[in-house]
């Protein structure tokens, strides 16, 4: 079966903070304004209206410098609550189009609209719909880039700003990128840019024309990645689609707890639960992380990378207990104890040990336990050292 044609839309609100300020105070519309720190302090421009940009003012520029460029500049303080409210409204619209939304910042998101044609029409129609709805419902200008992958969609969006909609048909990614300066590529900063320019590589097209091997020799692994990007290829998925990268559990104690045995039992219980959840999801973890919160709300997290990925409670517990031993001093009382497993691999596996026959027995035991829990509920069976734990919880 052929893969469906992939369509990614990059949505970016134009001069977001500045646009919200104009919305809050319509008199400011069309005037050079920035949102940022007070000019006397070391503040920088967080957002500049397009009128301000005409003076050469850019984000991250010191406010003092911006004022030199435009003495009439209006400098406004942040109104984060207002921005967050508008951002949420925009994201809600996007989520109505598709659940596959990856929000990358307060004013930017990727949408995977692959297969949404039946519902919303062709990708360009979806783009126009988003633009119209954001304008009508939130009164904010927005730009979009539409392409077969995230890399090209983002660059397309940047090129169309403000209030643009740039569509790059499949198959034209490389020729679309070719005339652009190499700095447009994600990952090409000042240093790499200068290095490439010394090699006579000015445009993305120049970069694509180089052979991968030479690039790899000069830039290492990044060389190959850059070459792929220069060809307009990018297979990275929308993160909203992706599985979670960690699973965690926390216990806030009714009264601050300092009893090592009780804390140890809590860790063991959480290890059991997390391991069962891993197995349920057919995942293995590569990291174990503990979280300790003290009565004064000071909180520390400490983690360890496992020598082999696992979905076994015994392994998770052994590492969690070792971390705990290392970072908890006897007598210290805790308000909260948390355990998380991270670095999750889907359908992943772990290497069995040549000298430990126990591995196999453990797997069979856990499989049996999972089956019992599945059929008779999570409370049906537990470790002897934990007996009573679950019952007590309801007391």
């Amino acid at each position, binding site marked *: 079966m052929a893969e469906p044609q992939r369509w990614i839309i990059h949505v970016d609100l134009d001069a977001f903070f500045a646009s919200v300020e104009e919305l809050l105070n319509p008199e400011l519309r069309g005037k050079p304004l920035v949102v940022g720190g007070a000019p006397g302090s070391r503040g920088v421009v967080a957002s500049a209206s397009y009128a301000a940009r005409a003076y050469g003012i850019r984000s991250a520029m010191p406010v003092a410098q911006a004022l030199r460029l435009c003495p009439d500049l209006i400098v406004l303080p942040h109104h984060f609550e207002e921005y967050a409210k508008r951002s949420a409204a925009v994201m809600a619209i996007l989520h109505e189009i598709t659940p596959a939304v990856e929000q990358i910042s307060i004013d930017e998101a990727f949408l995977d609209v692959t297969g949404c044609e039946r519902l919303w029409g062709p990708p360009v129609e979806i783009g126009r719909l988003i633009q119209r709805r954001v304008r009508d419902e939130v009164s904010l200008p927005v730009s979009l880039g539409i392409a077969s992958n995230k890399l090209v969609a983002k660059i397309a969006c940047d090129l169309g700003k403000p209030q643009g909609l740039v569509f790059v048909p499949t198959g034209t990614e490389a020729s679309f990128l070719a005339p652009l300066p190499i700095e447009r590529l994600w990952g090409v900063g000042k240093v790499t840019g200068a290095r490439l320019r010394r090699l006579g590589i000015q445009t993305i097209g120049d970069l694509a024309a180089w052979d991968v091997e030479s690039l790899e020799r000069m830039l290492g692994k990044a060389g190959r990645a850059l070459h792929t990007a220069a060809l307009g290829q990018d*297979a*990275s*998925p929308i993160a909203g689609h*992706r*599985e979670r990268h960690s699973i965690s559990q926390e216990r806030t104690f009714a009264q601050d707890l300092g009893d090592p045995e009780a804390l140890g039992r809590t860790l063991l219980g959480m290890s059991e639960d997390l391991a069962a959840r*891993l*197995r349920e999801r*057919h*995942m*293995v973890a590569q990291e174990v992380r503990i979280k300790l919160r003290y009565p004064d709300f000071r909180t520390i997290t400490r983690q360890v990378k496992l020598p082999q*990925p696992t*979905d076994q409670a015994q392994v998770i517990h052994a590492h969690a207990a070792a971390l705990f031993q290392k970072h908890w001093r006897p007598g210290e009382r805790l308000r909260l104890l948390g355990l998380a497993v991270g670095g999750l*691999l*889907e*359908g*992943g*596996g*772990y*290497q*069995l*040990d*040549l*000298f*430990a026959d126990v*591995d*196999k027995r453990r*797997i069979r035991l856990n499989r049996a336990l999972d089956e019992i829990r599945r059929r008779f509920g999570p409370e049906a069976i537990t470790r002897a050292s934990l007996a009573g734990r679950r019952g007590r919880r309801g007391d």
Partner: protein
Amino acid sequence: MKLSCLQENLAKGLSIVGRAVATRSTLPVLSNILLATDESRLKLSATNLEISVNCWVGANVTEEGAITVPARLLTDFVNSLPPERIDLSLIARTQTLNLRCGRYEANIKGIDAQEFPIILVPEEDKASQFATADLAKMIDRVVFAAATDESRPVLTGVHTELTPQGVTFAAADSYRLSVVSSPIPKAPAERISIIIPARALQELRRISGEAESVTMLVSSARNQVFFRMPEVELISQLVEGTFPDYRQIIPTTYNTRMVATTADLLQALRMAAIFARDAANIVRLQILPNEGGMGRLIVSATSAEHGDNVSELDVTVEGQPIEIAFNVRYLLDALEVIDTAQVALETRDPTSPGVIKPVGGQDFVHIIMPMHIAR
């Protein structure tokens, strides 16, 4: 000390002893190379207290003597000299080594040779002898399986058993085991069982290239091993402890046996490795028997983010169909040292060791534990 030798010979000698120089030692003299006249030759020595290497270089000696000088400095300087005669002389008062080669000259400050550790060489009576080419091949087949982390020190060594019949080398980390045996030209009369650091065997492999045969001696205290070649000598401490009884791990029965063309299997696995890179190196082998002992092997790797890869091979299969997962790096490591046209994989079930053997060679067996997969 006063002597002259050729730049090429000195440079080569320095490269032979170079890897035995201690890199992070609290004892400054261990970062040095000992240069000593030995009759009409120049003897170079380096040691990190675990491995010591001596190498003799042809020289014209006019005055006996010895000095140690920093290895890096001496080696880098000698390597940058033209291929001509080098005159070396020791300025005893300042413990400085003077080197002249054509119009180039250097003075290198040294440390008194007396401070360099003395390595004793045992009697010859319990000597074994190896043909260098065979020894190199055996080393290649086991050292990669030795553990690189120190959590179980015995596993960083290669278990070496000498009997009147020959030699058996075995190395294992926690996940795989390699065992290779061979008759040797000269074996000891009694059984000797020792653990040689894998690093020492790797070093021996590197420096034994030109010698036709290697003589091996084990000290009577069973704490050192000596490898002697015409111009070179390597001495290594042995690893203390008891090597796990690996013979128990080698399965004697199987439910599935597959025979594949080594080159085809290697190619399929190398391809799968590209996709397995981001997925804990997991490769799945599906062995499917057909009628008449024939069958198919399906090699697949899946990266949740980047895609998947499937290859199919015609193989011969005996026994049950099975799906088993391995770390593809381990499979590749093993197959890369197999030189027969065909290779066999035997296993009992998806959680039992996979046994890899060259077909038509009885002297090598490699065991890999499978990966447990969540589904």
